[in-house]
C-alpha cells in the first residue's frame, strides 16, 4: 500500500509538472505579442477573398441604373456559380434614380450565400433597410434583378431614422455628411456596428444629407 501511495504521489507530481510546462509553452501570451484577433470566429462558412472594383461617389451616381432605398423582404434563392450569390426580393421605399415598378418590387443580388462568405460581409436579413447603388443584371429571366455596384463599399445600411452606415471604404468626399454629435450611447452603437464588419472602415452618414447630396449630384451630372 505504501508503494502504491508513493507511485501515485510520483504520478501526481509528474502530471502537475506536465501541466505547468504545457501552460508555460502554450497558454501564456505576453502582453505585447503581435497577435491581433480579427475576423468573425463564429462564421464557419467557406471564405472567399475577392478583389473588388470600387468607384468614387460621383461615378457611382453616374453609373448606377437605380439608386433606391429598399427594405429586404425575403431570401429567394442562392447560386454558387459563376460566383456565390444570394438573391432577395425587396420593397422599394424611395427611388432616387432610375425607373422601376414600385408595386412589383425588385430583386437584389448580394455576393455570398449560406455556404460561402464573401469578404466576411454579413448577409442581408429580412426587414433590413438599405440605400443601394444598383446595376441591372444581365442574362436573367426577369427584368427586375439588380446587383450592387461596388458590393460592400456601396451598401448604406439604415442605422436609425437619421443615420446610415456605409459598410466599408470611407469616402473623404462624404466626410462633411458625418454626424458631428457624440455621446456614449452613440459610441457604443457605432462599436456594435463595427463588430459586424471586422477589419472594414465603416462610415456613419446623415441620412437626409446623403440623399440630398445624391439629388444634387444627379442634377449636376
Amino acid at each position: 500500500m505504501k508503494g502504491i501511495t508513493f507511485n501515485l504521489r510520483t504520478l501526481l507530481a509528474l502530471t502537475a509538472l506536465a501541466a505547468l510546462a504545457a501552460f508555460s509553452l502554450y497558454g501564456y501570451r505576453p502582453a505585447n505579442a503581435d497577435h491581433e484577433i480579427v475576423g468573425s470566429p463564429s462564421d464557419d462558412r467557406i471564405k472567399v477573398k475577392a478583389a473588388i472594383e470600387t468607384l468614387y461617389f460621383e461615378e457611382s451616381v453616374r453609373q448606377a441604373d437605380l439608386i433606391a432605398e429598399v427594405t429586404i423582404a425575403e431570401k429567394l434563392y442562392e447560386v454558387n456559380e459563376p460566383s456565390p450569390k444570394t438573391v432577395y426580393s425587396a420593397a422599394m421605399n424611395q427611388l432616387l434614380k432610375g425607373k422601376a415598378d414600385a408595386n412589383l418590387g425588385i430583386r437584389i443580388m448580394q455576393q455570398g450565400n449560406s455556404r460561402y462568405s464573401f469578404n466576411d460581409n454579413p448577409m442581408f436579413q429580412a426587414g433590413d433597410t438599405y440605400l443601394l447603388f444598383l446595376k441591372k443584371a444581365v442574362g436573367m429571366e426577369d427584368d427586375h434583378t439588380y446587383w450592387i455596384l461596388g458590393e460592400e463599399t456601396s451598401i448604406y445600411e439604415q442605422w436609425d431614422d437619421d443615420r446610415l452606415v456605409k459598410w466599408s471604404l470611407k469616402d473623404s468626399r462624404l466626410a462633411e455628411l458625418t454626424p458631428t454629435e457624440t455621446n456614449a450611447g452613440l459610441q457604443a452603437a457605432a462599436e456594435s456596428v463595427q463588430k459586424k464588419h471586422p477589419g472594414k472602415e465603416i462610415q456613419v452618414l446623415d441620412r437626409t444629407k446623403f440623399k440630398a447630396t445624391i439629388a444634387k449630384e444627379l442634377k449636376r451630372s
Partner: protein
Amino acid sequence: MRKHAFILVLTLALLICAVPYGSSAHPPLTTCKEGGEMYGYWVDCGNHQADGAFTWNTSIPNSVAAVDYPYRAAMTSGAARWNNTGITSISLSTVSSNNGNIYTYSDPNTSALALFHDYGSDASGHLTKWKIKFNKSKLDNKDASFKAALAAHELGHAIGLNDLYLSGNTDKLMYGYFGETLGTRAAAPTDKDKLGAVEATRH
C-alpha cells in the same frame, strides 16, 4: 486514497484546460504573428505557404493566340514581382492539381474582379489547395499592367496574406479594393507586403 484520486482528476483537468487555448497550429517557438491593418500586413495564420517555394498551374494554353493567354501572362508577371523580392520562388508547374489552380470565369453581374477561393490547409496551417479565378467580364478590357498587378495581389493570398481595407493601407499591394485604373496603388510588393510574406512563409 480518495483524496489522491480527486487531486489527480483535478490536475488532469488543469492540464486539459491549459493546453492550447487560442494557440495556432504552429509549434510554440514559431507562433504565427498575424500582424493586422496597423502593421501594414495581415497574415492568414490558418492558410499560408510552408515556405516561399510553391507552384501554380493552369489549363490556359501557353500561346499568345489563346483567348485567355493574357491571364496566364499576368500570373507569370505577378509571380516574377514576388520572386524579385527574394522571399518567394513561385513557379509554373506543368502538373495539374488543385494546389494553385488558375482559371477564368465570366460574371458581368458583380464588381468582383478576381476571387481567391476553394482554399484549404493542413493542421499546420499550410495551404494544400487554392484557386484563383479571374473575372473576364470585368478584366478583358483592362490592360496588361492592371492584370499583372491584380495577379500579384492574388498571389499574395496564395502566400498567406489577407486583404487590407483601411485607408492607411491604400498604397499596399494587398489593399483589397481596386479603382477603375491602378491609380496610386502598389503594383508590386511594398516593404510591408514583404514583411508579411516573410512572416507567412517562415513556419
